[in-house]
């Protein structure tokens, strides 16, 4: 028999011989095992329940809250940045609108002023033209009257020379007007 076979045959046998069966089945050891199990397990449970787990759970909870907070804060910052951007855009648009309105206003007032000046100018010119026209009309009437007077005088003189008779003014005037009309 080789040593290997010897050992294979022998190894399990020796245990049975030395302890007379499974040590696990030895009921006399149970009270001691149960007692010390209760004691050690109880102490460990107490330590876990009162000391270790609250500490560990506390820090995990705290970290989770912190991370959630940080996410919220980041979202808040993002919202604020968005708002700032919006405000900036709005201010820019407002400024643009204001500039445009000022330009339009200026243009309108300038236009008004120009229009006013133009109107004034037109009025004085019209007045001057009207005055000139009036004067011309006056001069024309005066000239016409003088021509008619001259014609009457001439006619009277001619008639006196021809028939040596002083004609009536009214008759001469009528005759001239008749001639003029024809």
């Amino acid at each position, binding site marked *: 028999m080789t040593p290997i076979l010897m050992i294979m045959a022998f190894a399990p046998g020796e245990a049975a011989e030395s302890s007379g069966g499974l040590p696990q089945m030895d009921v006399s050891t149970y009270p001691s095992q149960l007692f010390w199990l209760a004691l050690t397990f109880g102490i460990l449970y107490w330590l876990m329940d009162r000391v270790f787990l609250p500490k560990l759970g506390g820090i995990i909870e705290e970290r989770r809250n912190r991370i959630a907070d940080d*996410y919220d804060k980041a979202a808040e910052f993002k919202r604020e940045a*968005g708002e700032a951007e919006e405000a900036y855009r709005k201010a820019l648009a407002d400024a643009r609108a204001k500039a445009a309105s000022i330009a339009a206003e200026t243009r309108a007032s300038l236009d008004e002023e120009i229009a006013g000046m133009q109107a004034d100018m037109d009025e004085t010119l019209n007045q001057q033209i009207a005055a000139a026209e009036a004067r011309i009309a006056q001069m024309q009437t005066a000239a016409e009257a003088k021509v008619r007077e001259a014609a009457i005088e001439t006619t009277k003189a001619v008639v006196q020379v021809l028939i040596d008779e002083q004609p009536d003014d009214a008759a001469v005037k009528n005759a001239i007007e008749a001639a003029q009309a024809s």
Partner: protein
Amino acid sequence: MDSRHQDDDLPSIDEFGERLDKSRRKDDAVEDLQRSERSALGQAFRIGTEMLAALLVAGALGYGIDQLIGSKPWFMLAGLALGFAAGILNVYRAMNEMNAALEEESKDE
């Protein structure tokens, strides 16, 4: 000129928002994944002794009754049959829980 500059800056806020959302979602996903893989593994190791334990319990109960009222071996045989049924039930339940865990896992994907 001014408006061009503004457009360059503009996407960075959206980009930041995207990155924020992505990071948040990743945190949740990691937690979910770690969870579902485990329960199936635990259940797989369960089945072996379920049958044995049920047979042992019911057989011992039957044997005890036989000893009490001297009806050997009938109650022990009935107990073994009962134990067999209970063992099947145990295994069936373990399988069900395993399937549930696996289904939940595949639903997550």
